[in-house]
């Protein structure tokens, strides 16, 4: 797939379109259905919350949307490209071009400093001046004095801010956030969410936010509620 063909398809289509999505896993006790007939689409620039109780399939859905996993049946189009048509390497390429991530457990690389963690996605796509860009974004999230610190030397809130900087540094079209405040106290959580929405606005990113926090979900333009693997309502 070339970059040109991707650009053409992108202009007119939703950034994400999901049709009849099903996900089953085989366990020792038989087949377990996690998602059934899920359908929705998300337009560029939208902010969407995916909510539901533990075990409702939120994180599985997020993994499928990012192409981290493959569905049992159904179609997912990311930027107009059907993920089913791509192999794992093709999906990886798509992610490197369009997707940014924020995780509940931060997922910073322990042997990398804050700045190096932010530089990494730029280095993987061989972008120019990774050091400068990373530094600028870390300053934007208020960590200019922590550039050379390792994750274990940072507080939870600071680690998540580094993760935000890493997610936005490649200017992704789509940001997937999985319970970004799940590991933080409520005050720090609020600060992080503020920062997330600010950056989202500044960089004009589409945001898909997985959370079980109704208050947080209500800050998004749309809400998709999952229950036992199916969409119960779209608000």
């Amino acid at each position, binding site marked *: 797939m070339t970059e040109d063909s991707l650009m053409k398809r992108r202009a007119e289509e939703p950034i994400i379109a999901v049709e009849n999505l099903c996900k089953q896993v085989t366990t020792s006790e038989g087949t377990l259905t996690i998602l059934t007939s899920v359908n929705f689409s998300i337009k560029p620039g939208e902010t969407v919350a995916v909510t539901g109780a533990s075990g409702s399939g939120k*994180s599985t859905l*997020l*993994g499928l949307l*990012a*192409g*981290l*996993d493959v569905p049992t049946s159904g179609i997912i189009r990311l930027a107009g490209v059907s993920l089913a048509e791509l192999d*794992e*390497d093709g999906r*990886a*390429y*798509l*992610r*490197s*071009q369009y*997707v940014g*991530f924020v*995780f509940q*457990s931060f*997922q910073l*690389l*322990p*042997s*990398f*400093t804050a700045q*190096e963690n932010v530089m*990494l*996605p730029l*280095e*993987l*796509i*061989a972008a120019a001046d990774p050091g400068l860009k990373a530094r600028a974004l870390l300053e934007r999230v208020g960590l200019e004095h922590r550039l050379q610190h*390792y994750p*274990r030397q940072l507080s939870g809130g600071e680690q998540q801010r580094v993760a935000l900087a890493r997610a936005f540094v490649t200017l992704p079209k789509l940001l997937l956030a*999985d319970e970004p405040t799940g590991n933080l106290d409520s005050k720090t959580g609020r600060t992080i969410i503020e920062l997330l929405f600010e950056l989202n606005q500044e960089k004009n990113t589409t945001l898909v936010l997985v959370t079980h926090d109704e208050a947080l979900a209500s800050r998004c333009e749309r809400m998709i509620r999952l229950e036992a693997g199916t969409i119960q309502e779209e608000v």
Partner: protein
Amino acid sequence: MRYRYFTLALRLLARDWRSGELSILAAGLLIAVASSTAISLLGDRLRQTMVGQAAEFLAADLVVSSHDALPDAWLARAQQLSLRHANTEEFSSVLVENDELLLTGVKAVSSGYPLRGYLRTTSGDITEEVKTVDIPAPGTAWVDGRVLSALNLKLGAEIAVGEQRLCLSRLLTYEPDRRGDLYSLSPRVMINQADLAATGILQPGSHVHYYDLFAGDEAALKTFKRWLKPQLNPGQRIVDIHEDRPEIGHALTRAERYLGLASIVVVLIAGVAIAMSTRRYTERHFDVTAMFRCLGAQQSSILRIYGWQFCILGALTSLAGCLVGWFIQLGLLSLLKGLLPQDLASASGLAVAFGLATGLMTLLGFALPPLLRLRRTSPLKVLRRDLEPLPSSAWIVYGLAMLSIAVLMWRYTDDLKMTTTLLLAGLSATLVLGSITWLLLKLSRLLLPHVGLSWRFGLQNLSRQPQTSISQILAFSVTLVAMVVSLVVRTELLADWKQQLPADAPNHFALNIFGKDLDGFKRLLAQEGVTSSAFYPIVRGRLIAVNGVDVHQLASKESQGEEAISRDLSLTWSASLPLDNKLVRGSWWTGEPFQVSVEQGLADSLHIKLKDELAFNISGQTLRATVRSIRSVRWDAMTPNFYMIFSPATLDAYPSTYLTSFYLPAQRKTALNHLVKAFPGITILEVDVLLEQFQRILKQVTLAIEYVLLFALAAGFTVLFAAVRSSLDARVYEDVLLRILGASRHLLRRSQLIEFAALGLFAGLLAAAIAELTIWALYSRVFALAYRFHWEIWLMTPAIGAVLVGVAGFWNTRSVVNASPQSTLQNL
């Protein structure tokens, strides 16, 4: 763009280095390269030195034997390569003086002879001999004492060699390159080559052997040898120390094989260290890799990033390892200084290059499989932490490791037999015993309900994940096997040499004893207080045909067979099999005549089988005999050995003499004068100088082996320790959790000790079995040593394994119990 992954890998490597992630891996690789370089260098220098010393027995580094003078172009080529050259011509000649006849072996030598070693001569009294590198002056001859007694001459008299009269100026007591079986020689007359033409003996068609001697730089010799080989015609051959002097050749071969074995042992140990530390490195990089994948890195990029990292790390560490290895080798040699010859061969750059290649090869074989696993890390792991990539297929993991070990073994030993023997023995033992261990681990679960808490924790850890435990047990076993095998082989190799060459090994041969003198000679020996070995009858004869086919059509160029059929052999008969000999095929006779037993090497070389009919020419008559058995002979024992032994009565029709060997200490040399005076017709051959030299070589080889062993053991201990360290992460994590849950320090310490000691015990048991099997394979196929069951291995190895691994584990986990759980968790 092209160097994107390279620069990224470089930066990642620097970050990992800074954070200490690489230290164990780098240490493993450093040990591998440093030890293989050190052994490669040490082995190479010792081998070169030993070969150099052995060259003294050829009087040169390289000898070409021929029926004609060598073409000028060959000598020009040698000169071009700056090789020194000398030549000798050998032929038989009958001397007639004072109405006595004597068949002598005349040797004309050119100036420069001997190129290696020296001659010994006396002016009469055998106790006053002098070393010299001179040769007889033109117009003079140096002779064996027997020439004087047989022809009733004194030093200063003249003899006629052909048409030339020469003055007998000195007695020759030792010449380094005396060929043929030692005890069947005609007495020597050595003359200057300048007198050769004047003797008139060198006529077309006369039976003369030409030897061209070359000495010089090893590389130049190699080039010359390579250039020479294809041009040799059937009458010409390159004389090899292994064939020309089997007693020394065999010792050298075994020593070289041991050094080879030690190198493999060290590489194997280091390989284990590398495999274990790469495994740890890989496990600690699953999360990072999942994140790379999540951020869009493709599988090939992952492989390239880590591949580059390992290449850079491999190259840098190998270079450092080479340097360390160089210094270790210097250190070892300086320890050996007083015991090694002054002019030790210099280290070759090639040995260093091999050290480097070894490092990279070991890295490839042992690190690539775990590394390949990283490529398959699922990006989904960022969401589901428990998701670990499938391990690489066992075929890849073990196949690659085996392949790289096989290549290294082959390169070190240059010996396909040893390589396959070791690999097959090790592999089959590992498979069978690995399964047994798995079963034992499973069974040990049955014990759990009946033991105390610390025992339960300790044993549970092992049996819960049998696959992980087995791979650790295997890793420790390989290290222990390597250590045990090198220790046992060394001990028994040295014991075997010692037994073979006791302090009173025969150092003199007496030959040409006529039947009528036999009793008198035995009496005189007894009077002098000398004990001799058995007396063997000797008939001289030449093998001419096998099943009616001329032997010259059977022998390939440069083979042992070609050498043996081109001269007279000493034929003997015996009712019983000599002590040192072993029957390989066929059976010993029970009395029927015209049966013959053939030495194995010669039989193989001439394709002689049981029941073949051999024809011999003895004093112009033809004798036929049927092959009844094939024997192996210990050429490295200093006792009389024979290519052909006949059944009693077969040779009765031919005139025979007797030979024996005996030990005479240096201070009792005068006894020889009495023997020679009483029996002037007898030839006494003094091999004490040769024996001394042989023993000196063995002593140096022994010493080298001792140090190489020490080195292998040290490497083994270091690696065991490092390997324990690299398997700690999971255990530490569990121990911290246990501490958080309130487990006492005492409980944890005890369960850790039990776990590691049990791990070591299992590994030791496995190692004992594999070692026993490997030793059996090595002895029977490689070292030609007698195998016996080693019960001590079965006792010691499990005990040592339990103590070593137990202590290493106990020591390494002490920080977990002593530090705060919080800080340990943060550092994981």
